[in-house]
Each structure stands twice: as C-alpha cells, then as structure tokens.
C-alpha cells in the first residue's frame, strides 16, 4: 500500500460512521462501499460502527421525553410575547420558501435540468416575436404574445427563470429588493410568473423595469407579459 492508498484508507475509515448513518453523499457512499468490498478488515471495523450506531440510538431512545409542562410553559411565554408584525420581507421570504417547498425535489430538479433545452426553444419563439415587433433591433428585453405569457386582469407581470446556481436566499432578496411576488409556475423551461407591479404599467415603463431586473445576477431570463 503506497502513501496515497494509506491516506485514502484513513479517509474512508473516517467516513464509516456517516456511512452507517446514511448521511454521506452518493459519491462518498459509493467510495466507502467499494472499499468495504475490497477490505475485510475495514468491513470488520464497519460492523463495530454499526454496533455503536444501534446502541447510541437505543441509549437516546431510553432517555424518554420532556414533561407536558414544557409545552405549557413555552406557549404561556409565547402568549406573553408582543404580537409578531412581520415585515414585507418576512412575508415575501415565507412565501418564497413555501412556494419552493410545495414543489417536489424531482420537480425542482427537472426545472433546472430541463431549463437548458426548453429555454432554447422558448428563446427561439420569443426571438421571433421580438424581431417582428422591434424590426430586428437587438435588445436584452423581450415581450411575447404567446398564450403562456398572456397577463390577465390588472397589474403588470413577467415570466422569469432564475439562474440554476441562485439559492432561495438570493431569490428572496431579489424579490424583496424589487418588490416582486411569485404568482405561479414553474412551467416548461423553469419559468415563474411574477407580479412586477400591482397596477398596469405603461409599455415603456414595463420595458424599462424588465431591463433593470434583467441585470440582477439571479435572473437567467425575464420577459414581460403583455395582453
């Protein structure tokens, strides 16, 4: 066994407790599984880890639960607290978390992975509309008249796709800073429908607004919705 092999073995051994608990990444779990299959001594030590896991669970489960007074005390204290007055940022943040949480991981993953392909198709359609409406002039802002992007009623809306690497914190901050609300989605291409303003903005004002939003790092694509 060379030095590199020894380091790898040590690294693998350090990971055994997490492998037993099932909290390793798929890649690390695969490395550990491969090492266990090749190394009987490591496999023997892994059995000891599994014993520890089982007994730790048994020990903790034997500790019982807190008495009912804890909940009574807690909610008495909460009752004495000043009422929560959530700021706009709180309600927006909560709405974004709830919105994303309501999507299954598979849906979210699909949205991200399908975005690359779908957006090419979407961009083609939009580019066609754009060329038609603007006489071929280049611009970073798009308008569409497709059924998907028809904005009903009052208010001004846009369809937005976030950058795949943007996290919920970044997106929440973007929505808060620009006073946007997610209304629906995701639809094909990972697009979300957002309310840009609660009044009907003039066409030029809406285009300017969309141009500004397009500059944000979390935005992968944004298009105004028009009637």
């Amino acid at each position: 066994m060379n030095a590199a092999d020894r380091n790898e073995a040590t690294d693998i051994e350090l990971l055994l407790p997490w492998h037993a608990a099932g909290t390793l990444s798929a890649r690390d779990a695969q490395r550990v599984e491969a090492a266990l299959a090749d190394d009987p001594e490591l496999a023997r030590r892994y059995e000891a880890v599994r014993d520890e896991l089982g007994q730790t669970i048994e020990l903790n489960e034997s500790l019982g639960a807190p008495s009912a007074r804890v909940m009574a005390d807690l909610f008495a204290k909460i009752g004495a607290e000043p009422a929560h007055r959530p700021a706009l940022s709180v309600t927006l943040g909560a709405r974004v978390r709830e919105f994303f949480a309501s999507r299954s991981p598979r849906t979210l993953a699909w949205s991200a992975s399908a975005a690359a392909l779908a957006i090419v198709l979407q961009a083609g359609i939009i580019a066609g509309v754009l060329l038609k409406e603007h006489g071929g002039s280049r611009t970073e802002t798009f308008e569409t008249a497709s059924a998907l992007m028809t904005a009903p009623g009052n208010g001004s809306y846009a369809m937005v796709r976030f950058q795949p690497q943007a996290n919920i914190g970044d997106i929440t901050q973007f929505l808060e800073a620009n006073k946007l609300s997610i209304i629906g989605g995701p639809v094909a291409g990972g697009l979300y429908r957002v309310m840009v303003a609660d009044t009907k903005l003039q066409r030029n004002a809406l285009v300017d607004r969309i141009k500004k939003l397009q500059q944000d790092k979390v935005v992968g694509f944004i298009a105004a919705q028009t009637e």
Partner: protein
Amino acid sequence: MQTTSDDVLIGRIAGGDRLAMQVLFARHHVRVYRFVLRLVRNEAAAEDLISEVFLDVWRQAAKFEGRSAVSTWILSMARFKALSSLRRRTEEALDDETAGTIEDTDDDPETALAKKDKGAALRQCLERLSAEHREIVDLVYYHEKSVAEVSSIVGIPEATVKTRMFYARKKLSELLKEQGIDRGWP
C-alpha cells in the same frame, strides 16, 4: 401524505402562526430534549433549556435564512444554551457532578452483567465519554447529521469533525477494553 416542511413552518411562525409553532415543537422537541439532556445530564434543566430554545425559535424565525436545515439551526441554539448553562454552574458543583458520572472500574454487579451483554456495555461506555465526544457521537448516530451539519452545529471545521468522531470511537474502544471487551481496534 405530504407533511409541511420545516422551512414552511418557520415561514409561518415568522408571521405569528402559533399552530405552525405547535407543529414544529411536536416534531422536534423530543430529540432536542435528548440532545440537551445528554449534555447537561439534568432532566429539569434540560426541560427549562428546550423551552428557552423554542422560545428563541419563535422570536427569531424571521431571521432564519434557510442556509441550514431547521433541525440543524435548532440544535445549534440548543447546544449554545446547554453549554452556557453548564458554564453558569459553579466549579465545585461541576466537579461533584463529573465525579458522580465517573464509574468505579471495579466489577460491580452491573458491570459484571454488562460484560455479558456487549450492547449494554457499549451503552455504558457511551455514557462515560466526555461531553465533547458524547455530543459528536449523538449528532452523527442519533441526530443523523452530516459532516457539514455537525461542523455548523459545533462550530469546528469539517476535517476536525471527522477526526473528533474518530477519537471518540477510539476512546469508546478503550473504555470497552477496560470492561474486558476487545474490539481489536484501535
């Protein structure tokens, strides 16, 4: 049936939803209590502490940024409160308590029985680990926390998390050896 995610509950709690608070409390309070109890080793103190922890959840829900799992966030607060509580105790009281937890190495009837039951012996040795080692063993095995999550809760680098767990396990083997159980490692 899909349950409401912890993140969503926190969002609702931030908006003052007491029912969401009840759901979150029901979901996590037993595990948090056990985590704290293993650190402070006093049931009444552990109950008081988890009440404080969940009151902080109520107060600070709006500040939760979702950078870690809600359970990780709660355990971080619980750990901080437990350690602060331990620090508040007088040196003398701590010494008494620590002395009380150190087991006689002579073979009392309980130990003799433990030798026959490897599982019981292992549990006894888990109890005898230092607070630092108990904590990491519990977080990894019972609370199912990843290396990164333990790093976040305990406030140490991920590499240290792995080595601390390794040394906790090594100490466990040494304690077992004292009880006549040789695991052949380390």
